């Protein structure tokens, strides 16, 4: 029996996996810390259109979002199906845009204000009318750096 028990001296020792949990925990904490739970609850349904010439939005802290789309199913009985603007957590009218821009600027350092971008997350099925209205208001508020949120695709189809 001793044949089985005795280790040959030439055998490779098993790799010590005692540190494995530590490594896994480290990764776990990294992901726990970096995970951002979505900060706004979307009240409008948004499927952004696709485009090829997209750029990454850098510096997320300098980006403010304006959502436009039809209200989600659960809210349709209350708000109808016409396109709506959502700012932060609530529906807004286009008159609120200027105040929203001002409020967003207040939260930033004055030096950063010229770098702020307003990203429009608009549902592909929305009509341009409401988007144009928002754009005009942004112009009036002198928020000229804008971004149309789109997904990446390789080819545009008709």
């Amino acid at each position, binding site marked *: 029996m001793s044949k089985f028990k005795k280790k040959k001296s030439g055998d490779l020792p098993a790799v010590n*996996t005692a540190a*494995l*949990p530590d490594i*896994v*925990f480290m*990764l*776990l904490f990294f*992901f*726990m810390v*970096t*995970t951002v739970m979505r900060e706004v609850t979307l009240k409008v349904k948004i499927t*952004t*259109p696709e*485009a*090829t*010439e*997209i*750029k*990454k*939005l850098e510096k*997320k802290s300098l*980006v403010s979002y304006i959502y*436009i789309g039809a209200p989600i199913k659960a809210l349709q009985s209350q708000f109808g199906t016409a396109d709506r603007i959502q700012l932060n957590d609530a529906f807004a009218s286009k008159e609120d845009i200027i105040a929203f821009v001002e409020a967003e600027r207040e939260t930033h350092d004055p030096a950063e204000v010229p770098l702020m*971008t307003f*990203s429009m997350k*608009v*549902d*592909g*099925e*929305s*009509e*341009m*009318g409401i*988007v*144009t209205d928002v*754009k*005009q208001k*942004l*112009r*009036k508020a*002198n*928020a*000229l*750096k*804008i*971004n*149309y*949120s*789109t*997904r*990446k695709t390789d080819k*545009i*189809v*008709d």
Partner: protein
Amino acid sequence: MARRAAPEINAGSMADIAFLLLIFFLVTTTMDVDTGLTRKLPPPIEEEDPDPPEIKERNVFIVLANANDDLLVEGEPMLVSNLREEAKKFIIGDPSGQDPDMPEFKMTEVPVLGNIPVSKQIVSLQNDRSTSYELYIKVQNELVAAYNEVRNEYAQQKFGKTMKELEKEAERSNKAKLQIKAVKKVYPQRISEAEPKNFGDK
């Protein structure tokens, strides 16, 4: 009874539990890189501003999008998929100046390249209030793509590099920076959006 030493807790499955949590967070984390088309809006119009100068028709590439998501490009109906080629043709223009429908050229001082003729092209985009946003983005995308392709071809021809390569190099070299500037000056991106008009609501 003699006290028995408390048996050691088996920590072997700790790794499994940690893995489980890790995978949960891995899956739920949306490394949500926001991407999009970045545009710059024109500054607001002041009442006392003088009227903008008239622009000759031949210098303008007119793209109209109506409520049914049809495109009218320079007076001709067109599909989105053909827009990029047409726009490129217009942006490059006809440097010999023969074609009366192509934009005019003007001698301009360009860094690196010196005095060369630069097209006076402008792309004008007009849409109806009922045009879908999807079409609008497609058109915007195609127009930006046309400019990018023209610039790329030009950079390739003049400097033997694409714009992307130049941009990468520009982080360290001033020469590449100037080259980018030159290409952008030769083919400036001029996409103008008309002041919104209302062609009758639905």
